[in-house]
């Protein structure tokens, strides 16, 4: 099943992605659980392409979930390839209806979010996860094992799809920071 992900490229979606405006907190869509989607639905395929396009024009962006472009759906894109904290990377990929099925090696790390542009926070995340999901378009099931920064990004995006922000998981009263530089 993981081969499906290795071969996956955004152009298999077969539609042109549009850059969408990114929604910031407080916005209701960011705090509501997204709906499970039909990965074959043309609207979901278009959404997948739009997420890729929007991520690509956003400097430093390593992942973007549907609620962040105002759509309450369990779809997100991740691409951590260029990030220095990355160990394992699977390139650019879009997942639908993703679930974390195994999580271990919990460790803290500082994270930010395009939807909370002025703050960052220390959040404990699993450094190794197994995620199950389906691919947009084909609906092919994938089971993805990853670690380090890609694991963190996946958990952050899956949280978005469940209506959670990193603010809901910060490690303490002094674990939220005013962001000093914009990437």
């Amino acid at each position, binding site marked *: 099943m993981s081969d499906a992900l290795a071969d996956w490229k955004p152009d298999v979606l077969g539609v042109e992605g549009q850059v969408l405006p990114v929604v*910031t*907190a*407080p916005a209701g869509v960011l*705090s509501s659980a997204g709906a499970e989607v039909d990965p074959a639905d043309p609207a979901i395929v278009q959404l997948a392409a739009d997420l890729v396009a929007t991520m690509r024009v956003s400097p430093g962006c390593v992942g973007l979930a549907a609620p962040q472009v105002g759509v309450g759906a369990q779809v997100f894109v991740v691409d951590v390839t260029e990030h220095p904290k990355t160990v394992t990377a699977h390139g650019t990929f879009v997942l639908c209806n993703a679930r974390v099925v195994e999580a271990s090696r919990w460790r803290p790390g500082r994270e930010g979010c395009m939807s*909370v*542009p*002025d*703050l960052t926070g220390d959040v*404990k995340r699993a450094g190794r996860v197994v995620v199950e999901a389906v691919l947009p378009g084909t609906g092919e099931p994938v089971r993805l094992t990853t670690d380090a920064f890609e694991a963190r990004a996946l958990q952050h995006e899956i949280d978005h799809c469940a209506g*959670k*922000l990193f*603010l*809901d*998981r*910060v*490690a*303490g*009263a*002094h*674990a*939220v920071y*005013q962001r000093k530089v914009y990437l």
Partner: protein
Amino acid sequence: MNELAITVIGPDRTGIVADVSEALAGLGANLSDSTMTRLRGHFAMTLICTGAAADDVEKALAPISGLLATVRAVAPEADTDAAGEPYLVSVHGADRLGIVAAVTRVVAAAGGNITDLTTRLTGPLYVLIAEVDVPPGSADDLAVRLAVAAQELGVEVTLRRAESDVL
């Protein structure tokens, strides 16, 4: 031991901590617990000191430029029972009057003791993170009451166990 509670606040500038701690050291005042942080351009210090008289500290801090200081003698910490279970409360949503008041009232009514709390306002977004000692067995009930309060305020709230791994 003579214990003092001191607060200092003023427009942020270079050298506030150095000026204040130097004045305290000059009086033989020993700085024990403190928090010092910048809040919207104001630098705020809250300190507990021992070993100096309140009047002397007041006189030493008064000439430091731009700062408002308060000093008072306090009773040393009583032995507290730390029977509560540590939890974290996150609240975020559109800024409005009374978020902190409503949320902390719910916590207090449940017997929860707030041990640390930070708020941030960035643009329209208000964020509150609190560390709370919750009476054993009452967290589920508190979570329900917080959810009700949050719905009334139109904000999001989560209550979760604070982790502390002893190594």
